[in-house]
């Protein structure tokens, strides 16, 4: 099966005029311009199969948006190749345009002064969607994203959540094979986020749309993506399954133990000693609650629980799985700062 998106050794360098400080510096900048070259994307390679839903994540300034702009054909790379369903996006802009949908969370493609439905109609015409198909999609999306109430309202009067739902629907009206979502849930409340996520999930599952999702909300990624590509300083740090990432970077689980009141001796809680808990260590404990870190690969959960139970009266037990956010925080935290 040929890849839906193939990105090979992609590099993008920007030339930025060097700013000098102060008035004299400002005047000098006018005459002698020096440029600093900044590598926003530095040799990125990955490939996405048709029907995949991939999270493309990284900290601010990692080069995510620049990569998306090259994949959509807005920017031309300094070197490297991109192929989207066999087309080089910036060479054949208009043919590429027909097969991709784009949502930029911070910007809107809707007609600001006109009712939402008018933007839909214009997009239907721009992409030459046959009338029957157009109507079917509008009806379906209006239902899915619950847009009945504000369909006839000018976009400038919509709330952010309503506008984003409109933007998402607009990008799928012509049923593109590939959908790029650049921070689609930014600034949305829980309910709006959930309805966006459900929609994205359904587009991927039912219509087989290949989706590349950029976001800072890792709950989006955990909910939607099986695979993530993590980049920083313009390079790919990790490319693979979300679960594998967790087990690679966060092999630890935490067993939270709440001791029973009968454990109290002379008004003091006993101290849990980790010497006999093979492979596990007590991360913190206070007031009868202990957090025990362990690696599932080395210490089976039931052995650990049995060991704790054998020595202390236990009132409650729970296991905390690592979340993606903790993992990513750890990866970002480890990264080498670039001077």
């Amino acid at each position, binding site marked *: 099966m040929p890849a839906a998106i193939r990105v090979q050794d992609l590099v993008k360098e920007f030339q930025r005029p060097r700013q000098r400080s102060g008035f004299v510096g400002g005047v000098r900048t006018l005459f002698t311009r020096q440029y600093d070259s900044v590598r926003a994307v530095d040799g990125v390679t990955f490939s996405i199969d048709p029907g995949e839903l991939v999270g493309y994540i990284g900290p601010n300034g990692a080069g995510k948006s620049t990569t998306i702009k090259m994949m959509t054909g807005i920017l031309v790379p300094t070197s490297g190749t991109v192929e989207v369903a066999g087309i080089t996006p910036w060479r054949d802009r208009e043919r590429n345009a*027909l097969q991709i949908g*784009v949502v930029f969370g911070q910007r809107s493609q809707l007609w600001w002064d006109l009712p939402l439905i008018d933007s839909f109609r214009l997009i239907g015409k721009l992409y*030459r969607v046959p009338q029957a198909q157009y109507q079917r999609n509008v009806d379906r999306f209006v239902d899915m994203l619950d847009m009945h109430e504000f369909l006839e309202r000018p976009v400038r009067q919509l709330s952010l959540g309503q506008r984003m739902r409109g933007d998402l629907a607009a990008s799928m009206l012509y049923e593109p094979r590939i959908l790029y979502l650049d921070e689609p849930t930014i600034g949305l409340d829980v309910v709006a986020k959930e309805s966006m996520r459900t929609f994205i999930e359904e587009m991927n599952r039912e219509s087989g749309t290949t989706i590349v999702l950029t976001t800072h909300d890792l709950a989006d990624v955990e909910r939607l993506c099986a695979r993530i590509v993590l980049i920083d300083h313009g390079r790919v740090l990790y490319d693979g399954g979300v679960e594998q990432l967790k087990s690679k970077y966060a092999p630890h689980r935490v067993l939270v133990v709440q001791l029973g009141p009968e454990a109290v001796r002379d008004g003091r809680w006993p101290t849990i000693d980790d010497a006999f808990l093979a492979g596990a260590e007590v991360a913190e404990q206070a007031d009868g609650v202990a957090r025990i870190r362990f690696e599932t690969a080395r210490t089976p959960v039931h052995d650990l629980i049995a060991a704790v139970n054998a020595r202390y009266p236990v009132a409650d037990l729970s296991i905390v799985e690592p979340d993606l956010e903790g993992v990513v925080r750890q990866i970002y935290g480890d990264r080498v700062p670039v001077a």
Partner: protein
Amino acid sequence: MTAISLPPGSSRALDRNFPAYIEIVRGRLKVAIAYRQNSLFLLAIVVVQIFILKKVWTALYAHQTSVSGVDRHALLVYLTIANIQGWVLQDPTVSRYMYERVRQGLVAFDLVRPSGFIQQMFAQLAGSTLSSMMFVLPALPIIYFAGTLGAPASWSAAGVYVASLACGYVITMMLMLIIGMIAFWTTEILGLTMLYRLVSQFFAGALVPLTFFPGALRVLAEALPFQSTVYVPVAIYVGRLHGLAMLQAIVVQIAWIAGLSLAAWAMWRRALFRVVVQGG
């Protein structure tokens, strides 16, 4: 650097999407209706301007019926029509729209659409002209009293006027497009559009017909494209331009269309290159 295929419009089959252009024109009309106070306010300004010009010129003509070979009635008709026409054809909202799209980075969306940016802008311009016309028609009785409306010099003058007006319209569109595209470099064009409006109105002969311009100014005005947008068609209408001079003026209009189209095209290539290579 990779080779870049520019400008968009490379896949010809996708170029002419009239249903989409009609939708854009419709959208523009709806926006104009939504913001009708603005349009009515501008129209009121134009009517007042026509009224003042009429008063001033009537005073100048107090003791003679003809100045430099231009008779009073023809002059008043000229000023009235020139000002209405200038208002209908030169709606600044589209340059402002373009500038806003560039400034907010929304051109990114225009570049990922299957219809070229320029084609979309032309549809926007056509829509705004239509909406201005929509406001002018009901205002004609008021304009009749504020200014002086009169029939064209002859049937043939009327016919040539329409052709010359069409040429003038294309020139205006090209100039607006060029002004709007400057936003790709400066990201700030509001001052420039105001200056442009003033200069173009003056050199187009909307305030004073070119006939009255003194030597050097006249030469300058004739070297600029603005006279082709207002002075030429309206002078044909009132019969001031006729015969060989009229034909010559139309040839000049056509030359301007060709020259400005080339300039706009070259500029668009560079503008796109800027977005595409340096980032929005």
